């Protein structure tokens, strides 16, 4: 029997692991980037990033002071009887104190900070129901420096694939040194104004060394990555070969009169994680199951 306390504890542990350790694909890409850089300046920036990753992991400390705002993706089993939402909210409150997370959540207009990352529609939870018998909770702890550089556009169908490529390139140029490059880009094509942005963020949940199952989309990912890395923005915008570590694209069918496109810009610290709460209440972490 799963209890609210199980959900709360699993949420705290999920948040702790997510802000302390990078997913293995992102860490591997950063180590590869360090080897690939030849100039002193980008090498020093990447060295600081790699040293920091090691220090965070050794000290069980958040790698970046910006631990983001809590955005969750939950897949419930069909017969779920526990209040998962309440467990998550309580978990966020506790994690803010215990991990600790930075209290980032504020009222959008008064800017009042309650200090616990809980408020109107925060944490934000995306719900799904699936066929599995466990509760699956994923979280993305994304900083604002990169989120602030994200963009969407309602292109016309005649602008087509070229329009999409141009928009992605322009988003990277506009972001420049601001989003803590080397970045990771999530691109959402199609759907609607809201769906393309949702897809752009969800695209970041896929490992960056896994290409899209559709070969045409996979080719677009590879082409965009090569082109973006020709720009020379480099780590921290101080110049270099690595501007972006990976680009993941997702798409959805859209209206015949529309071509929405969204780009979510993620900093090098592409932190996300997943926990499964089994029917007996035990929390397991798929990243450790291999």
């Amino acid at each position, binding site marked *: 029997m799963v209890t609210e306390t199980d959900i709360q504890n699993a949420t705290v542990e999920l948040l702790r692991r997510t802000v302390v350790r990078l997913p293995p694909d992102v860490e591997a890409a950063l180590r590869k980037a360090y080897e690939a850089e030849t100039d002193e300046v980008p090498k020093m920036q990447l060295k600081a990033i790699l*040293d*920091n990753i090691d220090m965070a992991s050794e000290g069980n*400390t958040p*790698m*970046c002071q910006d631990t983001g705002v809590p955005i969750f993706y939950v897949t419930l089993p069909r017969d779920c009887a526990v209040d998962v939402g309440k467990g998550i909210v309580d978990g966020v409150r506790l994690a803010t104190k215990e991990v600790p997370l*930075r*209290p980032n959540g504020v009222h959008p207009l008064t800017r009042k900070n309650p*200090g616990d990352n809980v408020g109107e529609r925060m944490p934000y939870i995306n719900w799904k129901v699936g066929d599995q018998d466990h509760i699956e909770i994923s979280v993305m702890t994304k*900083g604002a420096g990169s989120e602030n550089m994200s963009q969407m556009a309602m292109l016309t169908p005649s602008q087509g694939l070229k329009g999409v490529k141009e928009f992605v390139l322009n988003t990277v140029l506009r972001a420049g040194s601001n989003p803590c490059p080397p970045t990771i880009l999530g691109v959402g094509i199609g759907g609607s104004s809201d769906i393309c942005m949702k897809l752009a963020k969800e695209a970041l949940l896929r490992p960056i060394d896994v290409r899209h199952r559709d070969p045409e989309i996979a080719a677009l990912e590879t082409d965009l990555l090569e082109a973006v890395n020709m720009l020379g923005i480099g780590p921290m915008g101080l110049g270099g070969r690595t501007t972006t570590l990976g680009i993941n694209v997702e798409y959805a069918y859209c209206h015949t009169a529309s071509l929405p496109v969204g780009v979510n810009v993620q900093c090098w610290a592409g932190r996300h994680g997943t926990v499964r709460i089994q029917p007996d209440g035990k929390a397991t972490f798929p990243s450790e199951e291999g």
Partner: protein
Amino acid sequence: MAKRLKTPLSEQDVRALDLGEIVYLDGVVMTGRDEVHLHALEYLEKGKALPVDFKGSALFHCGPIMRKVGEGWEVVAAGPTTSSRMNSLEPQFIEKFRPGAIIGKGGMSQPTIDAMKKHGCVYLAITGGAAVLAAKGLKSVRGVEWYELGMPEAIWVMDAENFGPLTVAIDAKGNSMFAAVASKVKENEQKARARLGLK
């Protein structure tokens, strides 16, 4: 060779720094981002005294994670925030409060570069996201002002020891590494567009 400097920074120290030079800081480092800039300038307008003196200071664009330990505080993670958010307020802030160095990430726009040249201030870039590494050089917390603005927006006054590495990314002579990179990126843009089959 890296240079070691102690705060408060003299105008002479600051003007002697060259673009690309690596610096480590000792002394006091103070945080200040969006709300501190807004509030400080508002205080000035109303003729109210500030709780800290920014003259010759190292102002860190940072909203740290701090942990309460007994009566005091401990630095958990303290990397830089995006400096460009302060672009519109920084020239006036430099003119009125005369900090010696601004520490941040991503660089700042031309009016700030001009203000730095005019008043003797540099921009020291520190690696974004490397918050544990940065915290290692911030040994203790002297105090906090304007805590009511929230943990990320308050003024945290900290004792630094060998805080860095920091890169002189904007000097006090009007040069900026970010501007140099931006002009190269402009040239490279054509190659990237060609790779994507764009005109």
